[in-house]
């Protein structure tokens, strides 16, 4: 038996021959909202000659920023701005962090396609998501329980929605937390009384987006043009954060994504170009 084990080891050794590590790449990590977008841009970017290739991974805005603090990533992608304590951490680790807006995203509030309700005010949204309003009939719909879906606390999408639409109030205890946008879409498409929020790029024919009003008078639909013109109120910037020390190494990629080619990919993927 030991002979077998030793033989196994010897055959495996060349497989694991130590070679140069994956040192020369640009590591991008963070928000799952920006993940598919960044991946597509990276794919196009990597095809060019003579560029430092880009490696992309997800985990959530918080994960990316933590990795930037610890120095395990070059760029942190985030769907929310830095929190105060994160800024403090950067200062403590002597990192000067620069922020670049690479695209904008509209947050769309979605419900099941069969839901009669088609528009809600911000106050109604706040009351629904905090659990004050619990039945659809209170906002003009059928007599059915409202099932609230939200993202997990590590999500930038969650933070943004909480801060801007809910005025920093906490979600209802009974809200269902899903760990990824895809799960929210899946769940809402199969639950009649459901309501949730996702980035505009993810809205598909299985869910119905609502028009939102911040002044109870004008209801705006979440469309690309409304978001670009600024009429749609729930719009947020998507960020890349990086250490200015690495700026030279990262510049090619960052300028690529901000260029016409990069922004065209942004638009194709369902996000709003920065210009």
């Amino acid at each position, binding site marked *: 038996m030991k002979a077998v084990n030793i033989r196994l080891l010897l055959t495996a050794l060349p497989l694991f021959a130590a070679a140069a590590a994956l040192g020369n790449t640009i590591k991008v990590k963070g928000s799952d909202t920006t993940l598919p977008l960044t991946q597509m841009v990276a794919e196009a970017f990597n095809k060019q000659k003579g560029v430092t290739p880009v490696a992309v991974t997800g985990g959530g805005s918080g994960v990316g920023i933590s990795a930037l603090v610890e120095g395990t990533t070059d760029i942190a992608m985030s769907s929310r701005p830095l929190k105060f*304590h994160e800024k403090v951490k950067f200062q403590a680790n002597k990192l000067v962090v620069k922020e670049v807006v690479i695209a904008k995203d509209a947050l769309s509030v979605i419900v099941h396609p069969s839901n009669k309700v088609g528009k809600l005010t911000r106050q109604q949204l706040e009351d629904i998501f905090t659990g004050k309003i619990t039945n659809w009939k209170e906002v003009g719909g059928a007599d059915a329980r409202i099932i609230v879906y939200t993202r997990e606390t590590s999500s930038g999408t969650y933070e943004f929605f909480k801060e801007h639409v809910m005025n920093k109030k906490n979600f209802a205890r009974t809200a269902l937390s899903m*760990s990824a946008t895809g*799960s929210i879409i899946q*769940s809402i498409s199969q639950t009649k009384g459901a309501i949730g929020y996702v980035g505009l790029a993810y809205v598909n024919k299985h869910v119905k987006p609502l028009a939102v009003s911040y002044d109870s008078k004008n209801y705006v639909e979440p469309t690309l043009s409304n978001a670009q013109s600024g009429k749609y109120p729930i719009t947020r910037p998507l960020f890349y954060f990086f250490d200015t020390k690495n700026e030279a190494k990262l510049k090619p990629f960052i300028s690529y994504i901000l260029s016409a080619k990069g922004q065209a990919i942004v638009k194709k993927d369902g996000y709003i170009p920065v210009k």
Partner: protein
Amino acid sequence: MKNTFKRFIERFVEGILFLSGTITTITVLLIVVFLFREGSGLFNNSTMEKGFVLAINKSNPVSKLSSYEIKEIFDGKITSWKQVGGKDQPIQLFHVEDITNYYTEEQIGANFENLPKLLSNVVDSIPNIVAFVPEMYVDKSFKGRVLPEKKLTLKEFFFGREWFPTSQPAAQFGAFSLITGTLWVSLWAILISLPLGLSVAIYMAEIANPKVRNFLKPVIELLAGIPSVVYGFFGLIVIVPTIQRLFDLPVGETALAGSLILAIMALPTIITISEDAIRTTPRAMKEASLALGATHWQTIYKVVLPYSSSGIAAAAILGIGRAIGETMAVLMVTGNAAIIPSSLLEPVRTIPATIAAEMGEAPQGGVHFEALFALGAILFIMTLIINIVVDFISNKKKISKR
């Protein structure tokens, strides 16, 4: 000469074996220490974000606020100071960003140099204010009163009902609903998978003919190789809507879905290991029993099962471990709502799912991070208790082999 050489080799190999055992032990201890050390740090911290304080006007008689009260105040559910022991005045919330409602950006200064003074003015001028501000802007001349920070107590952690780890100003770390959620889902998963698994193991080992067994064994082992994410999907796309339709519920993400998926995931482990154990019962013992006039079934439950009880216990423990610790699949089908489950048909939130979902966000060393480890430590203790119980039961039934 040859003898001493052989002896030397023997000692050497025994040494290697001993080393392996030691490595395993050390690793296990390391993980346990890691869990508990990080987790215990939780109780040395307050739940308020580091670097922030709560301040009130000097004339306010309230001297302290509990974590829960702070949350309710900032959520707009407690609206009058009277409700927390103060005067009958409405509570006025203030976040540091609100300073622009009172002063212009020029007055504040480009680098916020005037901010401490202005903050002090605002707090002093509004008697019913409660201000959530960074500590660095509260200087010696601050005219308000800073409320003392309260450390999280063991009782608040274990019995608190609300889990809002990122809430500002006061994060809520009430793990009770998480603990009960985990126990509830795991309990049903074990209740479903243990009898089911054991039955299949007995069938495969004793009753089925060899062709059927040779077909079943790889099939069951294949179940073990299906990724947990796929189980999660299967659960979300097939089981959850089925439950929703079957029981006419508003939402299908329930504890039942979680238990079912966990049971299916634990099955291969339980079945294969039990089956191995049952099959190694010496034929002599079985034939002796049959010779005495027992039926096949009686032989099974009076002779074979007690003989293999150690192996079955191992199967149970490993299977239960899988059921309690499973992360990804549960994350997708139970809805993750932090409420105390009152039935199988409601969403729940389990500890592993919580750790998985929030681990990425929690800054290393922060309160949230430590809270997640404390949760892990609780899970470890739960598994330990269950394992001790299973071991105890199996020991009672064991026929001594040595």
